[in-house]
């Protein structure tokens, strides 16, 4: 059943892996005793493990191909989640259940868990914000973290210099980030794809370098400490209470974001963004103002990042430029791509997986980032369109005999 050719291939792969990992897995130099340990058993494990894994991957691929060809013969079956998303009678109870779980989370789990969940939810909002720019409007933005930094620093600095409170700064942080989005948007409007990615990447680095080096303004690499947590009508709160409180603020923000993004996607503006992603020239020829549409996408995306930035500063009570490196942008982008470009549910699931998984993989201790990377690679190999791909809205008219399932492949 399993071809010999594939067995040979797997054997070659395992040999190659054994060779590649030889320096780190087999040789161990003990600098104190001045001797070299040769751990040949490690080499055996690596070779055997990669052999089994490559066979498993191949079997999986073969099965997938078979399933695909079977699917072609029959009618294309829709993924379960998309069917649920389309049917209101399944969707609404599911949404209510998720929301109830979200609300009761701090009571069910420890403060530590709540804190992790808060972080994950913040990334949900960041992902949804970036989703507007990358997923819907198709503008590859690698410097998204810059707007996040603007939000965080606007709270830190406005609080430090003008003693402004969390609630006053929350909208200001969002608006400042959106303003910066417009400023960045103007010069890069002509660019697309790779070129845009490079420019935004540079922009993200500029913001971080300014924060790091302009000591008089941002206190440089040492950052700003003692940022107050959000207040609740001047009430004193315990540490655990404070964390629960921030959790709820973030939860509300998540709900608002989902609501707004959902409405935007199925609006005149959302359609224009999609069209812009698909074909810029046709888009203009159809009377869409490219400049305006792109700028709105950029500034709206930045607005959410600014919002979350303020929350981030309030949650950690400390900001420094090290929190806003390119890695952060990459993680948010991964959330959007992994979850499914343009899909709201996809981005939410993506954010939860990408942020929670490393936390719960702590059991694997030093191998957790390795396992995490492997999961990402496997995901992208087997499901390149993301966990949940975007479903376009379908319309019903009299005399339309298209079955609903045909809008999406």
């Amino acid at each position, binding site marked *: 059943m399993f071809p010999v050719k594939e067995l040979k291939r797997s054997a070659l792969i395992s040999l190659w892996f054994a060779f590649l990992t030889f320096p780190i897995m087999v040789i161990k130099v003990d600098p104190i005793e001045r001797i070299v340990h040769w751990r040949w058993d490690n080499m055996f494990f690596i070779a055997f493990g990669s052999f089994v894994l490559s066979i498993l991957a191949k079997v999986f691929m073969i099965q997938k191909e078979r399933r695909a060809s079977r699917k072609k013969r029959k009618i294309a079956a829709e993924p379960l989640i998309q069917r649920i998303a389309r049917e209101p009678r399944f969707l609404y109870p599911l949404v209510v259940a998720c929301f109830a779980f979200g609300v009761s989370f701090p009571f069910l789990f420890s403060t530590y868990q709540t804190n992790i969940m808060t972080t994950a939810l913040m990334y949900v909002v960041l992902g949804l914000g970036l989703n507007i720019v990358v997923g819907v409007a198709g503008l590859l933005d690698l410097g998204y973290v810059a707007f996040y930094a603007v939000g965080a620093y606007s709270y830190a600095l406005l609080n430090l210099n003008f003693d402004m409170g969390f609630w006053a700064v929350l909208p200001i942080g969002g608006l400042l980030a959106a303003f910066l989005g417009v400023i960045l948007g103007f010069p890069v409007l002509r660019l697309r794809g790779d070129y845009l990615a490079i420019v935004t990447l540079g922009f993200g680095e500029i913001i971080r370098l300014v924060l790091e080096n302009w000591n008089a303004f941002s206190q440089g690499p040492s950052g700003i400490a003692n940022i107050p947590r959000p207040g609740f009508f001047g009430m004193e709160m315990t540490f655990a209470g404070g964390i629960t409180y921030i959790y709820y603020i973030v939860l509300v923000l998540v709900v608002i974001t989902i609501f707004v993004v959902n409405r935007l996607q199925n*609006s*005149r503006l959302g*359609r224009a963004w999609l*069209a812009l992603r698909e074909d810029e020239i046709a888009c203009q020829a*159809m*009377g869409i103002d490219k400049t305006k549409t792109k700028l709105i996408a950029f500034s709206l995306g930045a607005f959410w990042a600014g919002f979350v930035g303020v929350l981030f500063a309030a949650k950690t009570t400390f900001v420094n430029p090290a929190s806003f490196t390119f890695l952060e942008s990459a993680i948010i982008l991964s959330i959007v791509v992994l979850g499914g470009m343009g899909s709201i549910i996809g981005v939410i699931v993506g954010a939860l997986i990408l942020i929670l998984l490393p936390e719960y993989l702590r059991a694997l201790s030093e191998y957790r980032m390795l396992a995490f990377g492997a999961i990402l690679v496997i995901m992208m190999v087997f499901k390149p369109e993301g966990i949940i791909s975007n479903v376009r809205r379908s319309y019903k008219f009299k005399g*339309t005999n298209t079955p609903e399932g045909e809008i999406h492949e």
Partner: protein
Amino acid sequence: MSDSPTILEVEGLSKYFGGIKAIDNVDLDIRQGEIVALIGPNGAGKTTFFNCLTGIYKPTAGDIKLSDPRNGKSTRLNGKKPNKITEIGMARTFQNIRLFPTMSVLENVMIGRHCRTKSLIFGAITRNKATRIEEAQIIERSYEILKKVGLHRQVNEQARNLSYGAQRRLEIGRALATEPFLLLLDEPAAGMNPKETEALVALIREICAEGHSILLIEHDMKLVMTLSDRIFVMDYGKKIAQGTPVEVRENPAVIKAYLGEDVDA
């Protein structure tokens, strides 16, 4: 027809790409209600001419004047952005189909309604009454247009899944959704089978009868000769002939451009 008002007037239009004169001093005019064809061998500059009219290229020299027959307002198009030109009332289709492939058929047409509607962020989020009415009108109007081009049974189909001929018709529908008074069709019959071409001729006639004027680029001579009121012929960026189908067919310069020069031994 000759006493109808002129809606498009092109005078001395030139477009150079470096040393190459893609269009060289071309004049053209279209009167209200006419179907005008622009023909010429490959590389004659027809599509470049279209791109200059619709604002995708900026002409090197010359004047383009578009007059709206509905209110008599005339505008100089040189240097205007493509979306502004569409807003004034001139829409186009593309030679190499440029639909929005992963959007549904209906959504493709709805995009065409963009420049005739207004709602923005606030309307989208609050979904207030004005926005809901506008949205319903967009859907209704788009559906009517799809009926006209014969695609109303596939509203929810992704545009890329349509057949070639259907994609061309969808492009025409999408252009119609912008409410143009002048429609530019760039090789609408390319890649169509004879039956589809026949349906296309009927569709173009219908669109014209509704009061749209049409300028089309086409290689299918049968279609050009049956449809057009007047024909302009280009070769190497220059206009070499103009007139009714009969005049053009007998013009020696046109015959030369298409068939090459007689070589006497």
